[in-house]
């Protein structure tokens, strides 16, 4: 090992003839003319397209059982698109370099041989490092800002302050007390004479707010197509809420392992019209007044 000899560095400090130095845009152009750079860029473009296409597939899978059924789920799906599209170019660039190297774009040495010569001694590249850090930081910053805004939006939908443009404030929300126990859900409607139900019935386009607790272990109240989830903790009350925007029957599942029959701890959400909801309340013996 050789090593004291230093590699002759490119004379950065003393450009030999400043007057002839090409402009930086010109240099970028020349760099882009390099065959491998162009190939990698093409691969990047192709992979980006594939990833963006995949984001549609992902959301299609999420909607397979009938969603999105609330504005929260809409926001979640929108966020999925935005996150995927924002990350796609960087992911694609990474995979493109990977693919190019793997494919032998810069040549390769077969497994049976041993490398006879060293590659170019690129120890670092200030431009690449700075660009990469900047791009990654900007991307992460964008993701954070988008996430924070979305979180504020869905939190306001979940905790009561309804955005002005979505629901008229005159609608009286439905309060539901959700009690989880091994291994069933029970729903209580305190505004309607505390009637009990094992199926969650909600009127469409009316905000529903939930107080959630558990009688034994930790469960998680997951209304799949509405995009809402909160743990049901023993000894504590947690809150969530959503406004169903779609008529139909959706799923409530337990999303936290809660013992033997965790898999069977599921029930249904029936989103019905206000009239059907009122008559359901009356059938159950409640005193709905609306």
């Amino acid at each position: 090992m050789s090593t004291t000899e230093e590699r002759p560095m490119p004379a950065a400090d003393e450009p030999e003839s400043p007057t002839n130095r090409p402009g930086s845009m010109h240099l970028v152009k020349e760099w882009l003319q390099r065959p491998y750079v162009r190939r990698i860029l093409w691969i990047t473009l192709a992979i980006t397209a594939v990833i963006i296409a995949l984001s549609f597939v992902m959301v299609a899978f999420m909607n397979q059982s009938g969603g999105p059924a609330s504005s929260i789920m809409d926001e979640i799906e929108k966020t999925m698109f935005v996150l995927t599209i924002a990350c796609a170019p960087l992911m694609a660039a990474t995979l493109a370099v990977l693919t190019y190297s793997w494919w032998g774009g810069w040549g390769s040495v077969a497994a049976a041989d041993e490398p006879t010569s060293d590659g170019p001694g690129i120890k670092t590249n200030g431009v690449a490092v700075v660009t990469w850090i900047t791009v990654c930081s900007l991307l992460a910053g964008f993701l954070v800002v988008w996430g924070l805004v979305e979180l504020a939006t869905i939190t306001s939908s979940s905790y009561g302050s309804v955005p002005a443009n979505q629901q008229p404030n005159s609608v009286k929300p439905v309060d539901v007390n959700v009690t989880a126990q091994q291994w069933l859900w029970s729903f209580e409607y305190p505004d309607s004479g505390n009637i009990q139900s094992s199926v969650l019935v909600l009127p469409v386009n009316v905000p529903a707010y939930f107080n959630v607790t558990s009688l034994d272990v930790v469960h998680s109240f997951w209304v799949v197509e509405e995009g809402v989830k909160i743990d049901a903790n023993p000894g504590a009350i947690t809150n969530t809420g959503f406004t169903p925007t779609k008529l139909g029957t959706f799923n409530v599942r337990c999303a936290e392992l809660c013992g033997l029959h965790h898999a069977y701890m599921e029930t249904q959400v029936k989103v019905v019209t206000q009239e059907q909801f009122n008559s359901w309340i009356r059938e159950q013996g409640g005193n709905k007044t609306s």
Partner: protein
Amino acid sequence: MSTAVAIHEEAHVPQPTQVGKPGGFLRRTNFLTALISGVVTAGVFWIVTDKITTAVAGAGATNSMALPSGLNINITMMYIGWVIGFMAGIGAFAGPIRWFLGHDLTHADAEYMAGKDMGREKFWKFTTDHKVVGIQYLVVTLILFGFGGLLAMLIRTELGATWTEVFNPNFYNSIIGTHGIVMVIAMIIVISGPIGNFIVPIMCGARDMAFPRLNALSIWLLIAAVPPLVSNLLMGGIRDGWTVYQPLADQAPIGMIGYQICIITFAFSTGIASVNLITTIVRMRAAGMTWSRTPILVYGILGSSIMGLVWFPMYQYSQILALSDRTLLTSFFVPASGGSVWLYENLFWLLGHPEVYVIVIPATAGMLEYLPVFVRKPLFSYRLAVAGIFGVVGLSAVVWVHHMYMTGWAPQSNYPFMLSTEMISIPFSFLVLVVLGTMWRGKPWKRLPMMAVYAVVWNKVIGGITGVFLSDTPVDQYMHGSMFVVAHFHYMLMGAGLFGAMGVTAYFFPKMIGRYLDEFWGSVGFWTAFAGFQVTFMSMFVAGLQGMPRRVLQFDSLFNVSNWISTIGAYIIGIGMLIFLYAIIESWRNGILAPDNPWGGKTLENFTTTPVPHENFPVLPVVTSGPYDFGTPDPYELADDAIMQQTEGAEKVSAQS
């Protein structure tokens, strides 16, 4: 790294009087005596505890100090007895007692304990030589992976058989928990154990670890910790997943005690190993090995050890307190009498998240270590790699709440923790750039370790993008607790961690064993497992997106197809891993003999003979150059890159202006 200084002979050193033959008590201890002692002590503890608790109960003690559940406390004491007896039987307590009495080891004692001139039996003893400990770790890791993998096959069998319950729910829930924790333990040690112990001291140019006896203690504590965990399946199981959330775990049968004792013991093992690795790395690097000449793997192990050391006690205490809830009837996690489930979740995840990086960082650093060797280029931007590792180590402390977005614990904290979670992707992206930059314009030597890099980066990209989804609270509101999470962390822990570890093991195999890992069967196994892995977990992403919760054994027919595909993929992984295991065993016995420098690397382990001699180096090395000084500016390249160099120079100038 050519010059060297002659080491003085120990003959000059005044020795304490040698009592008896070198090694003393340790001459008579081995794995067998440990087993016997462990079992006997366990039995004695059981009987004595049973007598005492019965006597206390019989005396009609009515105050609340009376221990109510005989069985729980008996089993707890039995396991504690096992660990103490096992460690006593292997001779672990000889050191502290000698130290207590002021009988220090003579040089001859130390040589005996390091297994000098000893045959195979040294692998069955309390041997302090780091190379022996490394091999012991490797074998234990392989056994753990075998066991955990078998459980994984059972899980997938249950999930694939959508038309029936193959196992009863109690057993199914137990195997998902046991699979989880066995694999987590195996993944924590898979690099830091074998490679960290065997290679890192040699890479640092040291004769042994800083604390050789602690090194032996850490492996034997690990071996003592495993039987209680495995035995849980015979004792009602741990039907609570690997996280064993309270108070569900409080309801579990006595098998849970095995889990808790295992974690408490394993935490000691990890803590001791971390202390040892950190001290070795900080204090025992060879002369001339400055921090800017230290190989990146050493940094990775250092970072991972720091995280393990600092955060593991949180997990340990969560299990101590949970065990106390069970046996002493305290109420840390029992809400009816003043406990909090959120307390458990916080304590658990305070380790639980750094632990992910404890797993991923060494695998990544190991990959960065050998990547330059296979492209014969310098590591791209060494400093950025170091910054990336320590950035992750630092930020890992402040992201744990992202596992608790949906628990309802302080919903306001979701905002700052979403911020910190997204931020940790920045130092991680540094490491990606280092990989890409090192590959850039290099000719890869297509051996198995190199190919593993491609596989791992692919997995890491997918794990990374899905991690971006999960770190985003709104999306996590849909994903949390679903199969999507399971697929994501398998991409990180298995895809990046385990496949990385396979590459790293393949790279260091010739140095450790003296023979190359069989290229053909190793590759066949690796790529079969990789293909199966993609099938299994891609399809699991789909199940998660469709809304399938995790840890269920029966589910909506909507998820049938994706689960069938997953199960087929899982069997392919199983076959691939078996082939890889065959490659390891076969190469261990009959592989091609490796030369001193198996791959043409420039780190210190390549400058001693293969197999590595007892004292590692005949003379201690002095480092005079960096570990990745590859790359020659040959004329052809220079001509080709004339434009490039101009570009670099010009852009530097323009950046300054």
